């Protein structure tokens, strides 16, 4: 099935939040923000508790009183909202992505989630001082001649509770008209009703899905939507005019991985055409060494860390390069069978594997960033050149 022939699914699925908290903790200094009122208004049965701005110790204490599985924390963010993606070391190529930091954590429960080892806040947190975020964006995006690829799906899933927060609509209001930036919403959910129903200009907003092998989806991705569901949602978004991004990250090495990933690639192109896809990123599984214990503690049944992992140049555990190369070559070949021109890039990979897989490698992070910028029509308009993508 291609994007022109998508069968409509019941809309309820797309307007359902993956997260339905029974308690909402509201930081006292955040209680007057409009977003608090609208979120609480959508949770009429939830208990609302106002708390003083918590320290790390308070958060631990609060997590004993209120289960992080069923509690949403609404807070004011005091730091910068726009940040460089944390993977910017020069040892591996990074695309110089910018993160719009509007929330923390999600309840999907992927066993491999690296956030398990990073976050010291146990609660799914939504920052509510959006006026500060947009003011910061105004200041930053005013820099002449600079182009930004901005995403909200690094420290959380961009859409998993969008029906509660209504954030996608607010972001589209801002980025739909923005001339020198594109927004990428990354998700494993199908909560896309706000995107489909958005009445205004969506600009070049990218909706991206993280994809994996069906077996990994079933075993390791908690209650994320099934691969077919994600791709059906992607096709619907494409119909509405969004550009679609796909992310194979983390790519895992497990018995039978070829057949499984082949199946996912076939599913992609049963739902989408190559031209519908702005980019596909690939990144083999990697994690900070200390995450291994946390991961085993939270997901005792998983064996994804029991592979041939070596210490990478950035200190992270990653598959031995021969394994990565085999995974990459296979996946790229499979994708190219359906879409020879789609732009594929590696997330945090070394130039040898770039060269080995694609026959070319970005000289540095700037060049990789430039390749991705060139995939965006807005970038082309900004720079006054023809849109040629980065095939």
């Amino acid at each position: 099935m291609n994007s022109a022939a998508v069968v409509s699914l019941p809309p309820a699925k797309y307007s359902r939040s993956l997260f339905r908290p029974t308690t909402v903790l509201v930081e006292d200094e955040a209680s007057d923000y409009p977003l608090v009122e609208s979120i609480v208004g959508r949770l009429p049965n939830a208990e609302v508790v106002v708390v003083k701005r918590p320290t790390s110790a308070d958060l631990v204490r609060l997590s004993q009183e209120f289960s992080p599985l069923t509690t949403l924390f609404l807070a004011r963010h005091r730091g910068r909202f726009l940040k460089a993606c944390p993977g910017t070391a020069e040892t591996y190529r990074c695309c110089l992505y910018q993160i719009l930091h509007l929330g923390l954590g999600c309840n999907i429960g992927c066993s491999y989630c690296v956030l398990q080892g990073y976050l010291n806040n146990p609660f799914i947190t939504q920052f509510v001082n959006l006026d500060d975020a947009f003011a910061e964006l105004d200041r930053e995006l005013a820099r002449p001649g600079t182009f930004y690829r901005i995403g909200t799906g690094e420290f959380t899933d961009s859409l998993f509770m969008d029906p509660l927060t209504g954030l996608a609509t607010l972001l589209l209001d801002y980025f739909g008209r923005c001339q020198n930036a594109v927004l990428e919403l990354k998700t494993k959910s199908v909560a896309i009703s706000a995107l489909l129903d958005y009445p205004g200009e969506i600009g070049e907003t990218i909706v991206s899905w993280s994809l994996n092998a069906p077996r990994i989806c079933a075993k390791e991705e908690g209650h994320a939507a099934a691969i077919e569901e994600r791709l059906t949602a992607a096709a619907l978004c494409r119909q509405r005019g969004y550009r679609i991004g796909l992310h194979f990250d983390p790519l895992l090495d497990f018995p039978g991985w070829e057949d499984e990933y082949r199946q996912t690639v076939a599913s992609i192109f049963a739902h989408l055409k190559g031209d519908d896809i702005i980019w596909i990123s690939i990144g083999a599984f990697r994690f900070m060494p200390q995450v291994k214990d946390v991961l085993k503690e939270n997901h005792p049944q998983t064996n994804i860390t029991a592979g041939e992992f070596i210490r990478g140049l950035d200190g992270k555990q990653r598959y031995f390069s021969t394994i990565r190369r085999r995974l990459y070559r296979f996946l790229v070949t499979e994708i190219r069978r359906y879409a020879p021109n789609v732009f594929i890039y590696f997330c945090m990979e070394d130039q040898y594997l770039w060269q080995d897989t694609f026959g070319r490698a970005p000289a540095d992070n700037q060049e990789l960033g430039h390749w991705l910028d060139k995939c965006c029509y807005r970038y082309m308009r900004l720079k006054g050149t023809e849109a040629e993508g980065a095939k």
Partner: protein
Amino acid sequence: MNNVRTDHCFLADIDFADRTFPFSYGALPARLEKSIATAGLLQPPLLVAGKNGFRIVCGWRRLEVLRKLADESGEDEILVNLAKNISLQELFRRALWENLAIREFNLVETADIYCAALKIFTLDEVEKKIMPALKIPLRPRFRGRCQAISGFSQELRDLLAAGSVDAETVDLIKEWSADERSALIDLVTESGLRRNKLREVVGRLDDLARRDQISPFELLADVRQAALDEAGNIDVELLRRQLKARLYPQLTAAHLEFVARQEKFPWLKPFRLDPPPDFEGGDYRLNFTFTDSKEWEEICAQLNAVALEDIDELCRRS
């Protein structure tokens, strides 16, 4: 302490088996033995009446030393502090803080105190007062670790108390069966594996067991057999290499291939060529030594004559 009076008691009247206040486990410090042997008991232990004699609240190590000395001297009457009309909780608290004031608890003691506290206090009190005092983080992994240690065999607990096994190793073996842990103790005893290497070995066994879905017991028997030297003793380095090769087959193959590749280039003989660690990244390192300018010039000439194709071949990723 209003409800504590100093009195005499006989060692035979003390219930050494009672573990209501499990604040000490492990070998007796030699310094304590020497001190008591030389100067006698300076600080009386704290006891409380129990079903089978006096329970030791505080001072188990001092009493054990005295018992040892009494075997030689025959003197078994000692001065003690006896608690009366003090709640179990209060005695536990006093003993905990008195011990904490003078020393760190070992892993077995920490685990035993946590488990004993669970029987005496409410969960809330344990989490808010006891666990922070013992520096046990409020996470399931650490609670599980304590409960596991309390259920370990005495042999394993002795190794833990002596510091021969660390907490990370406990996390890995806590799900193992008693037989599997017993086989591991045998391996430690036979091979003399030290703490850090033991952690590495157990980590690899755990990874292999999870990856290949086989029991650590089976694996242990396998690698143990393969690591025997000619005299039938376990060679620790061979054991580690065996495990590494099994867990990292492709990396091991890459190393072997790299070594074999070097054989093809006789000009490499005077040099040592090191690949990047685990072949990650592209930085190869060539090592050589020289004693004077003449030797330096000879080496430079030799290197300048190397064909670039040879370099590409040597640095090729397998």
